[in-house]
């Protein structure tokens, strides 16, 4: 894990805080400035690189385990890769839609996480060499793009909001990763990604513009965290999770105005 404090401290961050405060005062309407937020969005880049880095490292370990016909090792590597991916879903669908669709295709994909999941966890087979090669290639391709990919606060707010909505989807059927039984981990990693993106990019600006709304957003992210901090998927209170997800989306929609951004899209956007 990277040290998150490095983003929240230091001289540059203090300058940004002062800048944000000035912008808010100058505008009078207490709206944050979108251009400034785009600069703040850069704070998210190391987290993004680290998350996909974990996914890539896991996929490479998976390839090694598969080559050695080591089923237990392959499963462990898949889970590690998956965790890195799920933390990164705040940006994947919006910023790299094609790679996202290949890496996370569902339900009976030829390549990607779920294709490998079905064989490893479903059939208990390790003959996933070509699928794993493709996953490593896709993740490697993605990892290479991350250093120079333009990041925008709008895009990250869109992605955060969409992921919040998705966390509230029904898991009555066992959820997305039902074969590996890691749907709850997916949700936790999603929520961790949501928390991090919000805290890193938007929290300060929103607190300056609208303290009450910032508190509401914080509180509802906390509610999501509490709801997924249970022993297993059966114990996630599904109706409450859905409500919390929708209330947080509504709050983030309200936040977009206060931040000088457009209302977030509900499907991966091409603005």
């Amino acid at each position, binding site marked *: 894990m990277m040290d998150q404090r490095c983003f929240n401290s230091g001289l540059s961050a203090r300058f940004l805080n002062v800048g944000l405060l000035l912008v808010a005062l100058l505008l009078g309407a207490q709206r944050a400035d979108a251009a400034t937020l785009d600069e703040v969005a850069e704070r998210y880049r190391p987290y993004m690189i680290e998350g996909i880095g974990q996914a890539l490292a896991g996929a490479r370990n998976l390839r090694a385990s598969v080559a050695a016909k080591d089923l237990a090792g392959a499963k462990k590597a898949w889970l590690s890769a998956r965790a890195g991916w799920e933390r990164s879903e705040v940006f994947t669908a919006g910023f790299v839609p094609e790679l996202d669709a290949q890496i996370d*295709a569902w*339900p009976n994909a030829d390549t990607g996480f779920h294709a490998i999941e079905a064989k490893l966890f479903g*059939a208990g087979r390790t003959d996933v060499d070509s699928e794993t090669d493709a996953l490593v290639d896709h993740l490697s391709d993605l990892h290479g793009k991350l250093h120079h990919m333009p990041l925008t606060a709008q895009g990250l707010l869109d992605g955060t909001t969409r992921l919040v909505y998705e966390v509230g989807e029904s898991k*009555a*059927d066992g*959820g997305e990763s039902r074969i590996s*039984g890691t749907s709850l981990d997916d949700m936790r990693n999603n929520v961790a990604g949501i928390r991090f993106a919000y805290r890193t990019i938007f929290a300060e600006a929103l607190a300056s513009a609208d303290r009450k709304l910032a508190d509401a957003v914080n509180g509802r992210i906390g509610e999501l965290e509490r709801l997924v901090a249970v022993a297993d998927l059966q114990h996630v209170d599904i*109706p409450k999770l*859905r409500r919390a997800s929708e209330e947080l989306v509504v709050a983030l929609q309200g936040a977009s105005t206060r931040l000088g951004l457009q209302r977030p899209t509900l499907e991966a956007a091409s603005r």
Partner: protein
Amino acid sequence: MMDRGRIRRSWIAAIAFGSFVMGFHGPVAAFPVDGDQTALPAKTELNEDALDKPREVFRSEAGAGGKSHMINLGNLAFSSPGILGSVARQAGMSCSTCHVNGASNAKFFIPKMSTRPGNFDTTGPLFNPKADNFVLDPVRIPSLRGARYLAPYGHDGRTASLRDFVRNVIVGEFAGPEPSPEIVDAIVAYINDIDFLPNPSLGPAGHLAGQVSDAERRGEALFVKPFPHDPRLSCAGCHVPSAAFVDHQQHDVGSGGLFKTPTLRNADFNAPYFHDGRYDSYDQVVAHFDRVFDLGLSAQDRRDLIAYLTAVGDGVQPYERDGAGAVIKEVNDFTLVLGTAISAKDTTIIALAVDTIGSELRELTERYPDRKNTNVAGGGPERALARTALKDLVLTLRRIEMAATEGRFSEAAADYKNYRYLMVAAVPAVLAGAAPWSLFNPEVHDAHYAALRQVLQAKRTAR
């Protein structure tokens, strides 16, 4: 990337969903319930993916009238997992999971709660452990068509009042919280409005009418003929043709106790038969009575009785194809309840309506697969637009509920007006535009569920 030209921009403008969209991620929910992490046991079958749904006919809509607020509220509550206990809520099950559109669900099956598709142990351990009687004694899931003619209630006829029966299903069988009197009254009003499907083969007093075959005539004669070894009995003695083919009594017909006479109206669509659903067909039912009452029926007699039962049990258009139109029609009825509740500042009903309608719309969203779904090619922009439209409605509903909870009823009313406006024209048009690539298209539907089954089968095989 998407083909922007394929989208009707007028729709986008009309519904003002903001910027242009592409598909996003989210697995289709609700079927098949499987895996080890669900609220229900592995291999549960709720049959929620069926493309043909039982058709529902309402008494109040037979003439120029329409459904009352109470009936719509009852239908809403009947469709709401929120009125039941935690296991049902977790699984997204409501009354309508078993009684699909007020009929039955012949494929419904929960391991250790069912012994065969179509039955269910109402005193089993899963939904209310406190009501568990430690024996697997499931009963057939009955159709509720014509229920107002069919008292007493329960297969053993133990409850005279439908109101008492409904309350017991909620609290006793499914461990729900004590429902308000208004909710119970509403569900009773709804159930009492579900009519039998019309059957032109039945004339006055339940006699066969119209073009009647010779076999049906002979069957009708056998039906009223006294049993050879006990002339006090006949089929029609209990299944009284002039009284919806029931006598409101319990009888021992050699099936293990006293059970009430079931109606024969629309029974062609009510299999399995007998209180525990032990029989699949009229053939088996007739053989049972022949055996138990020593009727001495010839093969021809049996065929004639089956022909008669089939004519009596028929109904016009028993199923209808599921589609966005059917879902929207029902959701619009529920929405009327929401409007009334906003006017009345009734936050309890507002919350119930928002949760129930929102769930229906979230499920409908998953009928338009996202771009990651491997079984759907084409229609990406249309599907994304449909998904966006439905998600926007879900969030509009949530805003209504949040505003009402905080006492901002004028805001809730304004959002409600906006919601109604979208549901009248824009959303149906958007959904129609995406229909070819939706799970309402049988080809897409079959490919998607075949793929899901294949993936899940791999897991079962490996076990």
